[in-house]
């Protein structure tokens, strides 16, 4: 039996180990902040490809382009953290904007009241999806897929398939104050609210517990059903805000607005480091994910790449980002 334990090799190894740990620290930083590093690399690459990229005007453009998807994605983050998914956000955004425009235009509601109607529409749609998953035991994928169809259908019913001009506050949300575009302001405000909910509210912390291990959360007395309804309700409200901003930019609520945006929102969340398996996800990551998508779109536009190819490239970016993430998790 070899009871002898060598000690000399350890002494020799020490310096090498130190170097390795510094290098490991850098590697850790990159792998912990993969999306951020990716975003910076992307910006530098875009700048080299076309110096137009780094002009203040263009950067504000990127912010505006990112805003709608980012706000949708903030809402989606709550849902993903609980291991759910909300496919209805694009449709709910369109419906909420349409309801605001319709109540303002056809019912003659004051603009602020119309805006409130829009928000309540998003809240209601989200609560329905949430109740269907939490109490009706429908898988989130199915419940929100149904809501995707219902909300889009209702948008067409309300509008009769014709765009409706937006109330003045909503148009203001899509405009700018001085040099500052309002969509970017709304993006920042909604991001701050999202961060606050996830990090400072007890129900936000509970979302991580529910997504990480639903049964353990339940046995600890966390009101799992209430948490689930809340995340879909929040996703609905955030979708409504995104829809209002989008319609404000166009000064009219379009029946086909935000079609397919749910995929961009999902991509932003996942690129930002959240796991579809639940329990993981940050608002800051989601913001970065949305910026990555916006920078790519903007850069490809500047470079005159056709919209068709842009689709393909965005798809590849999502696959690569998530692939890297899966590999990283496996190693950890």
């Amino acid at each position, binding site marked *: *039996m*070899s*009871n*002898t*334990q*060598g*000690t000399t*090799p*350890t002494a020799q*190894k020490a310096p090498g*180990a130190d170097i390795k*740990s510094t290098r*490991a620290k850098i590697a*850790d930083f990159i792998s912990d902040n993969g999306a951020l590093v990716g975003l910076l690399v992307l910006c530098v690459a875009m700048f080299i490809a076309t110096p137009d990229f780094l002009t203040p005007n263009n950067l504000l453009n990127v912010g505006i382009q990112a805003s709608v998807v980012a706000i949708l994605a903030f809402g989606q983050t709550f849902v993903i953290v609980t291991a759910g998914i909300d496919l209805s956000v694009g449709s709910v955004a369109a419906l909420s904007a349409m309801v605001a425009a319709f109540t303002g235009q056809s019912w003659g509601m004051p603009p602020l009241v119309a805006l409130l109607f829009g928000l309540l529409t998003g809240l209601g749609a989200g609560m329905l999806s949430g109740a269907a998953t939490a109490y009706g035991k429908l898988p989130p994928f199915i419940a929100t897929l149904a809501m995707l169809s219902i909300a889009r259908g209702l948008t067409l019913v309300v509008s009769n398939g014709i765009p409706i001009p937006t109330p003045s506050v909503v148009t203001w949300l899509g405009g700018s104050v001085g040099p500052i575009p309002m969509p970017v302001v709304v993006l920042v405000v909604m991001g701050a609210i999202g961060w606050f909910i996830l990090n*400072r*509210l*007890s*129900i*936000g*912390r*509970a979302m*991580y*517990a529910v997504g*990480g*291990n639903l*049964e*353990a*959360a*339940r*046995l*600890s*007395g*966390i*009101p799992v059903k209430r948490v689930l309804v809340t995340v879909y309700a929040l996703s609905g409200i955030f979708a409504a805000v995104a829809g209002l901003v989008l319609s404000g930019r166009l000064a009219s609520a379009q029946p086909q607005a935000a079609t397919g945006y749910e995929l961009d929102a999902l991509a932003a969340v996942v690129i930002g480091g959240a796991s579809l398996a639940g*329990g*993981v996800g940050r608002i800051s990551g989601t913001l970065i994910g949305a910026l990555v998508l916006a920078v790519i779109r903007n850069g490809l536009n500047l470079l005159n790449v056709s919209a068709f190819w842009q689709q393909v490239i965005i798809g590849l970016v999502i696959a690569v980002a998530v692939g890297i993430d899966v590999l990283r998790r496996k190693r950890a």
Partner: protein
Amino acid sequence: MSDQPILILDHVTKRFGPITVVDDVTVNVHKGKIQVLLGENGAGKSTLINMVAGVHEPSSGQIIVDGAPTRIPDTKASEALGIATIHQELQLVSSLSIAENILMGRLPQRFGLVDKGEMYRLATEALTTVGLHVDPRMPAGALGIARQQLVEIAKALSLKARLLILDEPTASLTKHEIEHLFGVISQLRSEGVGMVFISHHLDEIAAIGDSVTVIRDGKFVAEVPATTPEPDLVRLMVGRSIDEQFPRRATPPQQPLLRVQGLTRKGSFTDVSFEVRAGEVLGIAGLVGAGRTEVVRAIAGADPYDTGTVTVEGKPLPKGRIAAAIAAGVGLVPEDRKAFGLVLGASVEDNLGYATLMSSARYGLVDRRGQAERASAVAKRLAVRMRSLGQRVGALSGGNQQKVVLGRWISAGSRVLILDEPTRGVDVGAKVEIYQLMNEITAAGGAVVMVSSELPEVLGMSDRILVMSDGRVAGVLAAADADQRTVMSLAVKEVESDRV
């Protein structure tokens, strides 16, 4: 046959980032011999065997199989070398059938399709070796933790490995199953299989082991024969001696705290009634499948029941409402910490705080200071071994994970603690700490209900012992009048009268 070890862990070291978990340890495993690894929770035992199982690769040092230095980068490579591993934490896929779990990756095929008949035959054969008689078509998740453990063992045995690694295989088994398992192990040993065996039950070492490698804080301490007396093993392991294994300080029982009357759920338990007084520890004993876990889960509001009442301090608890039970001071430490106790991806602090997360919030805001203070106080009191409160709970050793689940209820100030197998996978030193905690709780006027499959623990720590059999209360004994024989004869009572 040569004397060459089939496996040598040669001066292996494993680091996770800056911390060294296994530090220059050497272990030899011989053909037909059982090498025991002994050490406290977090000593590095699982990490050590994980390097052989293909979960981790050593940071330095080498693994020598049959005299040749070998790399084991993944589980496939490990299996290809004839190594089978039973991991400490259950690895079964709960939605798949027992048979599919046992034969995962090597399902019998016929014309390119899974040969179901053969699959069930092979699975049944494997289950028979461990003495488990269940339908292999059932989903694995439908089994309790002890039976899942037996399925894991059956799976490993069916690989016909020549080196078998058993990481705490007995942690959730009762005496009966352990004896059966030891029979199988002895048989394999005589067939020349080499084994690594990890357990916190010291009596098992002399019963089954050949040689013991003791490690402490990741470092090699000594290698001693398995016949070494237990107190000496303890001293090597924890660096001090433990005078009293079951330090129960009885408190005079006071007013009844928890009263259960006629609790019944069809198919699980029938007419269960008992009372626990403030200052009392009630042990619940019984065979695997006697319905102990089902009853305590129902009491804690985790599952519904058909009829009966549960009252705490005279106030009835609503059926199946966990939050109400918690508010009344009931805390449940479930038997399967990985599945029901912990959010493995979240931090130690978060896990310690879940029971108070909602109730301590003001205006919906997390009580961040309070949560942090409670967590650090409890972690200190239970001596949870961790890098920081922010560490992922999944990276803690098994015993320390158990302390975290327990700590959650201490932190919530629960007065009726329901502990389901509270010392499963907990080392001797930490066990005593948990027992002392039970003393503190009862001394402070709380009550403890402890379900345990370890008879010595039930006998040593309870004031009264309730024995369950086939979903019914077979009898209640005062601890003073109870011994292994009286408890066991009650535990098998109903079963026999039913089956004769």
